[in-house]
């Protein structure tokens, strides 16, 4: 076991990791942050997306020891300081961008990464960006709507071109 220290959502946290400990397991089991979900554990679904030093990654395919010292943002770090939902999270609620909610942490983290680089994405850009995030429930249109709404754009036409 080796000690790994991360700055998670602004707080310095440490825990023990084996060579094989994945960042997803480290966050969930060692640090108790279970908002990061593990859907496939095969790098396909994106439920496990977190930001490492500002970049979105699939935490099921990153070794905890490989990112020792990094700054990590998880879904637990997304809400506003007063506990209210962040704009993206609120948009998912308003636009019914989730049903069971299992994929939602990864969707929100992926969407946040997109909006940081591209504050007003087109619908096509949102769909392209979310290629690595799989949702078994909602059928994507409402997720895309939520991301467009979070960027302050009109969403009345979203999904029409795609249908």
């Amino acid at each position, binding site marked *: 076991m080796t000690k790994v220290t991360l700055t998670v959502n602004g707080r310095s946290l440490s825990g023990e990791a084996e060579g*094989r400990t994945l960042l997803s397991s480290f966050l969930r089991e060692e640090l108790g942050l279970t908002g990061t979900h593990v859907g496939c554990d095969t790098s396909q679904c994106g439920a496990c997306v977190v930001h490492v030093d500002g970049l979105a990654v699939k935490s099921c395919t990153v070794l905890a020891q490989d990112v020792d010292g990094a700054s990590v943002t998880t879904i637990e770090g997304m809400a506003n300081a007063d506990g209210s939902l962040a704009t993206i999270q609120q948009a998912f609620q308003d636009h019914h961008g989730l049903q069971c909610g299992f994929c939602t942490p990864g969707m929100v983290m992926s969407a946040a990464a997109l909006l940081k680089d591209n504050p007003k994405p087109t619908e096509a850009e949102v769909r392209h960006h979310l290629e690595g995030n799989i949702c078994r429930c909602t059928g994507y249109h409402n997720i895309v709507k939520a991301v467009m709404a979070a960027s302050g754009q009109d969403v009345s036409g979203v999904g029409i071109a795609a249908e």
Partner: protein
Amino acid sequence: MYNFDFVKPASVADAVAALAGEEAQPLSGGMTLLPSMKQRLNAPATLVSLTGIDALKGVCREGNMLVIGAATPHAVVAKEAAADYPALAALAGQIGDPMVRNRGTIGGSLANNDPSACYPSATLASGATIVTNTREIAADDFFQGMFSTALHEGEIITAVKFPIPEKAAYAKFMQPASRFALTGAFVAKYADGVRVAITGASEGGVFRWSEGEAALSSNFSAEALNGLSASADGMIGDLHGTPDYRAHLVGVMTRRAVAAAH
């Protein structure tokens, strides 16, 4: 996944030294290696991370060459190669998804030589040079069939040098579930001729389509390929496409790449 020792050296020399140990293997982005270890297809005793070695990262122009560090992630190539070699940047920007592009690296992709991977096509079509800790290997000698390369045990790729073409493009017929290439064609036009490399199609991995190259070297237009078709012998057949289908795609994707080349 079986457990292993993890080391993260800061220099190429230290990485090479660590790789001399029993059953040690380099880890770059981990986007291929870690899933294969989870499936227990691979069980190294030591993983030597290359992600802490600054000398292996970055994109830089040297005369008419674009030199890319082996541990440079796809997302960085997509951005930083855009001005000098736009077709290569576009290829990098179509690999997998944004999270895969933030971790996966060019060195890992070339060392792995997946028969459906994107980078081997650009590397072979550009006549690039693969630089390792001990030597330089021409792309024509580097790829030695599916998942097989000229790399020796413990040898690591440090950089890839791409001669910048006059015109080039990559056309990828995406396999929608894996997002790899069902068949992809990279076409690059140089002063002394045109090179065409095909990925995703052959049982032998990436290959140069010589008939296509000859036709395009005398007339660089999609029409020059009319009447030419690749043979289905040795093409991959699986539930996504028959050998005939892939052979047909060789022509189609090469035409599309020529039409898109700039």
